[in-house]
């Protein structure tokens, strides 16, 4: 039987059985289906290869409330899309109400982080909790052999067990968002789209399988912040928490006022609301720091953003050998959209902490973002950037 991998733009690698030595027809796979193109193709691909596929879609928040429409159906169109795909490819499909877990584990944490002056990444927290803890547990309870997602990341078997690698398509690589995946979670996870050449190849498969979502646009925003207005969402979760304060320079001189620190992130240049400065020859102003307690936003020239060393907490380490005291040369990513840069990582004094020293200064590093370590394509681990150090 010809498989979809005989077509240009795809690869044969993914045609390896998901569970070594187990035939697809004997393998039960749960697929986390969001209703988007990627997870839909993941499900279709596995069903096409003969796996027993179970589609699960999580209802994470009240779609009607999120888009500001009253009495909208509790499920957004994404859930309907996922159900349509499941019906089209002929798999069992279920919708799970994870709204409480998502609010407690992801949305509340997101709001609190912003109020601490950090720039959080809720997608990582969601992968860490709702998806790879709760959904994985459910997959086990259902007797599934593995849980597949539509993430663009590769899982490869190494000498010491499964390894996490960057996706074949560097543009689509989502390994940054999966750094917190533990080794035991990785045992059960599968990422069939990791070897895809590019997104067009995925869309071509969606069309080939006749999926209605083939031309659906990629999601651009954080799912519970449609339109990207964080301040509104945080104001709803923490009413009154957004209090105005001063915008100051590095010497503490007040340059202006702001409506709340939640509107700012380190490295931000636009929208500071300060005009008519006399020293414009020095170049534009950037947000250099956020003092949550004093509700102050510190601004200054770009040079003030330069950092040579940062501290991480909540570190997840995926390599079999522990990080040695002498440190290790790696490549690190400090923002999702940035290319990896060379750095040396050494264990911190407390458990779960790591120090990162960059070979050359990095700009615009924000507490709350992730710093992910790479050895070539392989993800060695990562941690959360702290305000100190």
């Amino acid at each position, binding site marked *: 039987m010809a498989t979809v991998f005989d077509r240009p733009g795809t690869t044969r690698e993914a045609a390896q059985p998901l569970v070594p030595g187990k035939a697809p027809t004997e393998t039960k796979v749960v697929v986390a289906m969001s209703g988007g193109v990627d997870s839909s193709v993941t499900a279709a691909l596995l069903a096409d290869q003969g796996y027993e596929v*179970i589609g699960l879609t999580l*209802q994470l928040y009240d779609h009607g409330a999120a888009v500001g429409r009253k009495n909208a*159906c*509790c*499920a957004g169109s994404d*859930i*309907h899309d996922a*159900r349509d795909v499941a019906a089209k490819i002929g798999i*069992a499909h*279920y*919708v*799970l*109400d994870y709204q409480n877990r998502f609010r407690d584990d992801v949305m509340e944490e997101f709001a609190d982080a912003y109020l601490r002056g950090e720039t959080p990444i809720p997608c990582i927290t969601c992968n860490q909790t709702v998806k790879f803890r709760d959904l994985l*547990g*459910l997959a*086990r*309870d*259902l*007797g599934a052999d593995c849980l597949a997602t539509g993430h663009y990341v590769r899982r490869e078997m190494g000498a010491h067990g499964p390894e996490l690698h960057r996706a074949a398509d560097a543009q689509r690589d989502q390994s940054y968002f999966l750094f917190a995946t533990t080794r035991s979670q990785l045992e059960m996870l599968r990422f069939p789209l990791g070897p895809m050449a590019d997104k067009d190849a995925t869309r071509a498969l969606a069309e080939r399988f006749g999926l209605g979502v083939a031309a659906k646009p990629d999601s651009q925003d954080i799912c519970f912040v449609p339109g990207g207005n964080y301040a509104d969402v945080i104001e709803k979760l923490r009413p009154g928490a957004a209090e105005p304060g001063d915008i100051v320079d590095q010497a503490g001189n007040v340059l202006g006022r702001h409506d709340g620190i939640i509107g700012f992130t380190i490295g931000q240049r636009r929208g500071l609301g300060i005009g008519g400065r006399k020293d414009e020859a020095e170049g534009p102003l950037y947000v250099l720091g956020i003092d949550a307690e004093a509700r102050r936003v510190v601004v200054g020239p770009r040079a003030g953003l330069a950092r040579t060393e940062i501290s991480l907490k909540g570190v997840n380490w995926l390599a079999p050998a522990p990080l040695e005291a002498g440190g290790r040369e790696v490549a690190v990513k400090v923002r999702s959209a940035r290319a990896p840069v060379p750095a040396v990582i050494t264990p911190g004094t407390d458990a779960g902490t790591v120090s990162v020293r960059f070979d050359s200064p990095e700009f615009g590093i924000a507490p709350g973002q992730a710093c992910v370590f790479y050895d070539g394509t392989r993800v060695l681990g990562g941690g959360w950037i702290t305000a100190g150090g």
Partner: protein
Amino acid sequence: MSHYLDYNATALGRPEVGVAVADALALAGNPSSVHAPGRRARACLEDARAQVAALAGTSPENLLFTGSGTEANNLALSGPRPARILASAIEHPSILRPAAERPGGFALIPVDGHGVVDLGALKALLAEPSDGPVLVTVMMANNETGVLQPSEKVVEIAKQAGALVHIDAVQAAGRVALEFDRLGADLMSLSAHKLGGPKGVGVLVKRAEITLAPLIAGGGQERSLRAGTENLPGIAGFGRAALSALAELTGGTEIERQRDLRDRLEAAIAAATPAVVVVGGQVPRLVNTSCLAFPGVAAETLVIAFDLEGFAISAGSACSSGKVEASHVLAAMDLAPGLASSAIRVSVGYATTIQEIDAFVAACRVVLGRNAGAAALGVDRLPA
């Protein structure tokens, strides 16, 4: 291989109902027409009305066909004079939601830990002053637990206070005798598909003196209380299902057979899983319904796991998106923490076999045996 154990959601359609529906579809006329085909259609309609009336224990002229049990419930609350509505906390949403919007006021009658309506609380609510009439609405049997409500006492207490009484018998019909006339209630709702009839047909039984405000305006069908050409195939199917259901109730052993199946199921599961709680198990229940709580195990996981094993059961009430919502019925019973979220409902019917029950018990071993939350249940003691 699939086994249907969710009769309280909807019963399997009875083969004889399919015949009756097809026969009615073949009738050309409109029941309101003067000509011969019209008269034949009218006769079919009235035959079905008599069949359903026999099941309800009343005269055919007291029946109004509707588009669902939900519509019957809504119509029951529609009285032209805004009545204060007293509804039990475990009523179906098709009572609770319209009741909350009625202008005459609304109060919930609590239930006890077994899921039985609190008659003392009902008396206290009836003693409260009210500007206008009061309508008490208490279901005959609960859909989630199967717990039977003291309908006779509810009617007696309500009548002493001069209140009207509506009884939602959607889940009870075909499983216990309804006896509308003897009961002395003013209104009663039934639905065809719970009896093995077609979906989309209900009936509101109404004493002649009770006035209602139609929800749908138009022609004069159903004594101008439900405009629109009658759903004749559906109504004919309802009649045929009622005939079969009444036969099961009044003769033979079908009701006892369903009770035996349910008891066999509960005994096998309790023997293997001592921590299981049979919700409402200590009070009179419908013979076909088993509400089982497995503490520490998420009910929605069980519903999915059993479906994958080929068994259709349910938990809570499903919303239109298919997700499982927390049960207001179990919440109203004030069960121990965690119990409500671990409760599944198994409901059997006329086509359920003893082999299916034994297969379900065997599937329980598989499903609970691999569930992380079930470890605390002592499920490993389940015999292989």
